[in-house]
Every structure is written in C-alpha cells, then in structure tokens.
C-alpha cells in the first residue's frame, strides 16, 4: 500500500484554504456568463421569434385589447424553464432580450422566477398614417449598426408601404422562399414555380425579419 | 450406614434416577392411545413425565446442602452389598460435587424441556411414546453421571444413545431425520463399543468395575494396556460429547430432532460425554501425567471451538447453526468449567428455535424474518440466550468465558507453554465469531422484514414461554452473581474433580493420593453487580433526558401521506419484501477464508462412511498420542 496523499495532506494543513467564501465575499461570474434574462419591452415588436426558437418553452406572451383597440402585450420569460442558451437573444431582431451575468435566481414565492415586460402594440390601421410605435422606437434605443439593415437598401423600384410591413421588389426577387421560412408570423407565402410573393397582412407583425434575411435586398419596409 | 430412614438423603440419588425410569414404565404401560385434548395429545402421560422430572430435580436440589456445601461424598451401595475382601462387589452410586453438579444441570434441563414439550409436541402423533423415550433418556443420563460403576456407565450410555437416536428420528417426516438418526446410531455405536472395550480392558487389569477402586488401583500400575483403555474410553465419550471430529453428527441430530430433544442432546447428552471425559482424566488416569492430558483436551477443545464456530457461520438453518455453536461451546467446556452456563443458554436458544419452528414450520434462515413484531417475548428470550452465549457482559456466558481467558493465559504464563496462549486468543476470537453468527440469526429470523406468509404468526403458548423464561432467568442470575454461583456449585465441583483422594476414601478404599488443594486465583477484576448498577444509572439518566426531551417526536408529523412516510426507505421504491439475511451475511469475512470454507464443506460430505472413517482415525490418533506422549 502506498499513500500518495500524505505529503499533500501535511502541506495543505499549513497552507491557506482555497475556498471561495461566497456568501461573505461577492463572487462575480465570468464575463460571458449567461444568467438572468433582462427584457426590454419598449423595443419588442412582438414578432414572437423568441418564442419559436425557445427550446425550453420558457417564453410566453399574453395580449389584451385596451380601449383604443391596441394590443397590450405582456411577454414573460420563465427562468425556471430556461436553459440559458441565448438563442432567443440571438434571434431577437430588436435586441430586446439580454442575458446578464447575474446568477442570483432563487424562487421562493410564485413569480420570483418570471421576468416579464409589457408593451402596447398599436392596432394596425388599414390606411396607416404613421409608422408603428415599436419600429420607430428601435433606432432611438439601439445605437449601432443593427437597425441600419432595414433602412439602407430601400430601392426606388418599389415604394415602402409606410406601415412597416414589407413590400416586394419583383425585379430583384428570385423567389428563394427564405423570407417565408424565416417569417416568425408565417405571414408570407412564396411560390417558386408560380413566382408568387404574397403577404398576409393580418398575420404580419412588421418585424422586418424578411428584409433582414433577403439575400437580394428585394424587400422594403 | 443407616438406611432405616427412607427419607434419608443418602437414598435421594437412586430415587432421582428411579423416578424417571418408573415414569417411563408407567407411560409405556398406559398404552399409546392419544388423548382427545388438542392442546395436550399425550394427556396425563405428559403430566407424569413432568412430575417425574420435577421430582428428580427436587431430590437433587435436596442434595446440594450436604454435598456441595458439606463436602460429603455420598456412597450408596445397591442392596447394601458393599465391599467384600477389599473388592467392590455391589453396584454403587457415588455422588460427589462433580456428579451432583452435572446431575443438577441435567435435571434442570430435563425439567424445563418437559415443561416446554407439553405445548410444543401438539402437532405430532405418537406423543405418548415420545414421553417414554424422553424419560428413558433423562434417566439414562442421570444414571450415567451418578453412577459409581464403570460398566453401569456403559449401560447408561447405551440407554441414552438408544433413546436419543429414537427421538432424533421421532419426526420421521422432517427433512433428513432418519438419515441423521442413522448416522448418529452408527457412529454412536462405534463409540459405545469403544467404551465397552475400554471398560473391559480396565477390568482385565484390575478385576473391578468400581470407579473409586479403579482410581485407587491405577496409580503406579500404569502400562500400555491402561493407556489403550484410556484411548478407547476417551474416544467413546467424545462421540457422546460430539467434540471434533464427531461434530457433524451433532449438527445432523440437532437439526432433525424436535427442539425439546435438541435441548437434551445439547445440554444433557454432550454433558454426559464431558462428564465421562472429566471423570477419566481427573479420576482414573490422574497419575498418567495430567499436564499432557490437559494439553490434549485443551487442544481438542480449541479445535472444536474454532472449527465449529466457522462451520456455524456457514449454515443456512437455524438449528444446524445452533448445533455447531453447541459444539463450539463444548470446546470451552473442555477447556474449563463452562458446562453449567452452556446448558442454560444453549437450552434457551434451542427452545427459542423450537418456538420459531412451532409457529412458522421452518428453521431456514433464508425464509424467515421480522418475527420480533409477532413474537416479542420469544425475541427477548432469544436475545438473552444469544448475548449469553456470545459472552456479552452482564450475562452468564461472559462470567465463565472471562474466567477461561484468565485461567488459560495464567496457565500459559505459568507453564511458559505458548500453546495455552494460542488457546486464549482462539477463545477470544471464537467468542466474537459466535456473536457474529448470532447477529446473523437475529437479523435473519427475528429482525428485518416479515415475509407475507408469516403475517398470521402468533406468540407461542405460555407453557413454552415459561420454559424459556426459567432458563433466561437462570442465565441472568448466574451472570450477575458469578462469585456466589462459583462458590455454591462450580468451585465444589472443581475441587471434587481434583480431589480424588477423598472420593476414594469415602467409598471405603485406601489410597495414597494426597488431598489436592485447589485455589482460584483471579488475575483480573470483574464486578457485574456494580457494573450493572452503573449502567442502569447511566441508562436511566439518558432515558430520562430522552423522554423529557420528547425523544420520540412522532406526534409532530405534518405529512399527509402517513402511510408512505412510515414505510421503509428503499431508495424510493415501494415497500417490497427485501430481507438481508441467511447464510452469506458475513461475506467480508468468508471471502477471506473461502479456501478454508470450501475445504470444510467438502470434508463434511454427509456420507456416513466418512464419519465412521473419522471415528476410526480419531481412535487411531488417540491411541498413538497416548502411547507416545504419556
């Protein structure tokens, strides 16, 4: 028998313990740690992409009509069902979802682990007088290159509709169906053979995903 | 001697024997028709047997005062035909302290077992015949130990062997009963033949059969024929005591016989063998070189101790396990005066095994379990027996074993013989192994899970519990007052065993042997009463604190699912039957000794020829040892 730990034990006895004294000393998480979700409702356009990509089904929303006929949408993130995979944040076109380095997520009461935010989604008026609130707020909130995408490629061939919903530029469109596949609301129908590009306006939430993903920049908003 | 008064205590020994034979005769004469009472199929015959054994016990108890305390040796010549011309003509009973000591043990065991039998034998047929054999067996053993005549000893040995064989086979339907009886009969018959040969060799030399006279004649006239006689007698009596190499017979016989008979085989039959060996070594052949002979006995005793305790660890059957332990303890008995305690606790254990058998119909350790909830009294009584045999302090086994350790180590130091040291070590380790196997029994039989089929088991009838209670009480009392017991019973017996001179002279023979002074030196200290007092105070203190502190906070439960809460924890599984027990409980120990156990298992083949061969080999070895060493 040999005892390889004899030396180890003796030397450790007289050295400082290597403990992380957590509750008494703060212990910050690593910079890229994905912890508690922070939701910025003001930038959310209710595209529901996050809900679609969430593996754990942690993201839900409820919507109630207010007296103006607008939707009051409450989006909630159940941390108790979240895998902290960051996919929702990756997919959020408006960057409304953020995973912070805060790891103190303890639920004792009901709702301790729910992160939620409420915003008003203006009802769509048929002759839209002005752009919807949500897309308008987006550039103000986000300082960076991301919002540039929907605005830059606006081509003269087709006029933007003005209500934030997409319009097709048939001259550029190759009917690749990417926009239809990526559309969170399944509002687009594209037929490659018949060369049809159709928008179901009731389903469209004006998120701009189609324009983002279009390889030919054939969609204008 | 004045025999005019019939109530003179000099008559008591013959009364004690005759009352049993008379009982056997009356029961046999009353025919074999069973009574209609379902609780006592033998009817009045059981009461006759009980009265006979009780009377016999009373007669012997009455002898304690003159023999044990007064130091008298009762010599009783049948028909007043005593000594004529320096030769013993008549047949004599000689009762000294040693005889009385064994006789008392035997009478107690027989009485308790008779009490037990009444309710225990209700399931059997032919119970009247059982009591005939029972009384014959008891009378035979009592006759053996009280006899002063070596040929009478042989006759009594035959009577008891015969009765014991018949009783072993009594439950012919029991697995292996006939086989066990036959094996016992063959080897027992070889033993009896050896005794007879030894007796006749002594007779050829000294022309007398009287023990005292033999004892007075043998010193100084030692020759090879005497040694041969001793070898034959020794082997003959060791078949009766079941010491190694005759232990498999005991295991078979105990396992097959009814429990009340197992008690007699273990507590009474083996004692008769031990008595025979003691009488031989200390009386007849004392001058042959006691040291060598003691060494042989102690050696055989140690081998018995160890071999049988390890065999017991490997057993799957309650009664076979107890049987091996019985022989293991006989090893201690050979080494020193452990006999009384052995009878008490071994009897208790066999009765407990019988109680289990009576209620459940099996003694297989693998099938039983959890009986303590159904049979709490039996459990407590069994535990007392188990603690006693394993030498747990306040009980009697400890007191005697403690003396054995002290004595054997003292002997080792005094003689400088390292063999005795080995004996001390073996004795101590054996005692732990004994504890281990009784832990196995208590876990396998009384604790653990209760199998479904034993849901309706009840506590045994009062009669059986009473019998066990008597033995348990004796176990506790003799454990608590070892000094008084030693002074009253053991010490006179030990002195008598060594003091041949007074035995011979009181029979009316002349001897040159000096009176030997036996003194008991104790190297250690042990005061069980004080110890128990302290323990009780300590326990009381703990218990009071515990009770005051709501030790048992059962009332505070807040769980809704009370049923699942009080189930056993099985890693979350539902309450399934899962009993840990049976033969392989001490795997960690047996794994290291696996070669030994394999070897022993092959050796105990169960073929009667092998056992007979062992007997012949043992006889040959004994003869060789006697010729060379003595």
């Amino acid at each position: 028998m040999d005892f390889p730990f004899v030396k180890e034990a003796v030397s450790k006895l007289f050295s400082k313990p290597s403990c992380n004294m957590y509750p008494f000393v703060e212990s910050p998480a690593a910079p890229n740690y994905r912890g508690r979700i922070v939701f910025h409702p003001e930038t959310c356009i209710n595209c529901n992409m996050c809900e679609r990509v969430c593996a754990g089904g942690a993201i839900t929303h409820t919507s109630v009509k207010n007296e103006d006929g607008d939707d009051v949408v409450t989006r909630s993130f159940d941390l108790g069902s979240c895998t902290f995979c960051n996919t929702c944040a990756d997919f959020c076109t408006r960057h409304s979802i953020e995973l912070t380095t805060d790891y103190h997520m303890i639920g004792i009461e009901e709702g301790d682990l729910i992160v939620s935010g409420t915003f008003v989604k203006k009802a769509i008026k048929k002759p839209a007088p002005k752009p919807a609130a949500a897309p308008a707020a987006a550039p103000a909130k986000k300082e960076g290159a991301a919002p540039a995408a929907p605005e830059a490629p606006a081509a003269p061939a087709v006029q933007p509709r003005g209500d934030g919903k997409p319009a097709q530029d048939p001259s550029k469109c190759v009917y690749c169906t990417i926009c239809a596949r990526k559309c969170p609301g399944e509002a687009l129908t594209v037929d490659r053979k018949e060369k049809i590009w159709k928008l179901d306006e009731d389903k469209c939430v004006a998120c701009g995903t189609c324009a983002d993903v279009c390889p030919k920049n054939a969609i204008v908003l | 001697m004045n025999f005019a008064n019939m109530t003179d205590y000099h008559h008591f020994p013959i009364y004690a024997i005759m009352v049993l034979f008379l009982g056997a005769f009356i029961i046999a004469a009353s025919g074999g028709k069973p009574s209609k009472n379902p609780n006592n199929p033998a009817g009045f015959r059981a009461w006759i047997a009980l009265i006979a054994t009780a009377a016999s016990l009373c007669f012997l108890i009455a002898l304690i005062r003159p023999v044990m305390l007064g130091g008298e040796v009762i010599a009783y010549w049948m028909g007043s035909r005593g000594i004529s011309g320096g030769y013993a003509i008549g047949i004599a009973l000689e009762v000294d302290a040693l005889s009385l000591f064994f006789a008392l043990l035997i009478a107690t065991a027989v009485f308790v077992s008779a009490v037990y039998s009444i309710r225990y034998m209700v399931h059997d047929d032919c119970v009247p015949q059982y009591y005939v054999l029972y009384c014959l067996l008891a009378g035979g053993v009592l006759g053996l130990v009280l006899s002063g005549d070596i040929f009478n000893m042989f006759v009594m040995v035959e009577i008891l062997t015969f009765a014991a064989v018949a009783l072993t086979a009594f439950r012919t339907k029991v697995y292996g009963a006939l086989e066990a009886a036959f094996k016992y009969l063959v080897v027992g018959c070889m033993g009896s033949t050896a005794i007879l040969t030894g007796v006749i060799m002594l007779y050829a030399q000294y022309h007398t059969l009287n023990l005292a006279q033999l004892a007075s004649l043998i010193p100084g006239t030692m020759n090879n024929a005497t040694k041969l006689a001793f070898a034959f007698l020794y082997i003959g009596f060791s078949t009766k005591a079941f010491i190694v190499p005759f232990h498999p017979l005991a295991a078979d016989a105990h396992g097959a016989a009814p429990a009340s008979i197992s008690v007699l085989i273990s507590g009474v039959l083996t004692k008769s063998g031990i008595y025979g060996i003691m009488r031989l070594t200390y009386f007849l052949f004392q001058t042959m070189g006691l040291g060598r002979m003691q060494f042989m006995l102690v050696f055989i005793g140690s081998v018995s101790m160890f071999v049988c305790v390890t065999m017991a660890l490997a057993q799957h059957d309650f009664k076979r396990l107890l049987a091996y332990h019985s022989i293991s303890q006989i090893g201690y008995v050979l080494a020193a005066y452990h006999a009384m305690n052995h009878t008490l606790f071994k009897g208790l254990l066999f009765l407990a095994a019988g109680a289990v058998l009576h209620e459940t119909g099996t003694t297989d350790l693998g099938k039983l379990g959890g009986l303590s909830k159904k049979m709490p009294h039996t459990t407590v009584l069994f535990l007392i027996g188990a603690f006693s045999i394993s030498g747990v302090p306040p009980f009697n086994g400890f007191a005697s074993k403690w003396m054995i350790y002290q004595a054997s180590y003292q002997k080792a130091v005094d003689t400088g013989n390292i063999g005795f040291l080995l004996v001390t070590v073996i004795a101590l380790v054996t005692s732990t192994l004994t504890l281990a196997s009784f832990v196995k029994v208590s876990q396998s039989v009384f604790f653990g899970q209760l199998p479904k089929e034993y849901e309706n088991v009840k506590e045994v009838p009062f009669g059986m519990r009473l019998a066990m209670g008597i033995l348990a009480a004796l176990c506790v009392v003799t454990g608590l007052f070892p000094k008084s017991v030693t002074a009253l019973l053991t010490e006179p017996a030990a002195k008598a065993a060594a003091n041949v001179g007074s035995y011979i002279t009181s029979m009316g023979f002349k001897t040159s042997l000096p009176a030997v002074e036996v003194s008991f030196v104790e190297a250690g200290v042990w005061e069980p009463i004080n110890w128990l007092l302290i323990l009780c105070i300590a326990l009381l203190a703990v218990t009071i604190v515990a009770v005051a502190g709501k030790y048992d906070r059962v009332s505070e439960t807040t769980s809704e699912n009370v049923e699942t809460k009080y189930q056993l924890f099985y890693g979350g599984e539902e309450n399934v039957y899962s009993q840990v027990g049976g033969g392989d409980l001490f795997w960690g120990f047996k794994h290291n000794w696996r070669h030994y156990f394999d070897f022993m298992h092959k050796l105990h083949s169960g073929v009667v020829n092998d056992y007979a061969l062992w007997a012949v080999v043992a006889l040959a070895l004994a003869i060789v040892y006697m010729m060379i060493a003595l």
Partner: protein
Amino acid sequence: MFKNLIAESTAKSPWLFHINSGSCNGCDIELVAVLTPRYDVERLGFKLAGSPRQADIVVVTGPVTKLSLDRVLRTIDQVPDPKCVVTMGSCPQSGNVFKGSYSVCAPLSKYVHVDVDIAGCAPKPEAIIDGLAKATEILKTKRGQM
C-alpha cells in the same frame, strides 16, 4: 431557551438529500462542486446525508420522469419534519426542454409543496449556496413554528 438553541442549530446544520429524477447530471455535478474545496459548503454546516431519514433539505434535480415521480414523492414523504424541498435547475421546476414529453411529469410543484427553486441550467454553485441559504431560513422558521 432550549427551543431557541434548537432553532439556531437547525439553521447551522442543514443536511441535504439529493434526488436525481432523471437529470442530465449537469446539476448533480454542480451540487457536488458545491462540496469541493473550492466552495466547501461544509463550512456553513451543510452535509450530504445518505438517507432521507437524516435529511433536512431535499434537493431534486431532473425533470421528474414518470418512473421516478413515485419514488421522488415517496422519498420526500419519508423525510422527517421540519423539512424543505428544493428544486434545482430548470427541469424539476418546469420540465425545461423535456416539457411536453409523454414521460415527464414536471413541474414537481404540482405534487408537493416546493419551498425553494434554484434556477439555472445548471445553476452556478454560488446560486446553489444562495438557494440553500434561503432554504435554511425557511427551515428555521418552520422549526420555530413547531
């Protein structure tokens, strides 16, 4: 005073019993990590108990699969009072990615009262320590009420 002493001691020596109800072992590893020299919860008096009879806090990991549900509930029942049930990781709280599977019975709170949820997939050891500390407080309160 004695009652106080017991309540104080309860807070200082909570013993854990860990049930894995079909977990991916991520949480289990983290729970063990909490016992390592790096985090060493033993300095707070925590200890892993081997049997539910000795535990104060039951830590459940895993999505409570159908087969394990019965066992989990029985084991939790077998813990003596006062006790505290802690779910660790997302699975027992909601089923997480296994939600909706025919073989998953999460959330656990449908069946028993869960005192503390520790979120995370798997939670960071610090988070576990946080959660256990909360559970300890709850234990102390429960002890005080008994």
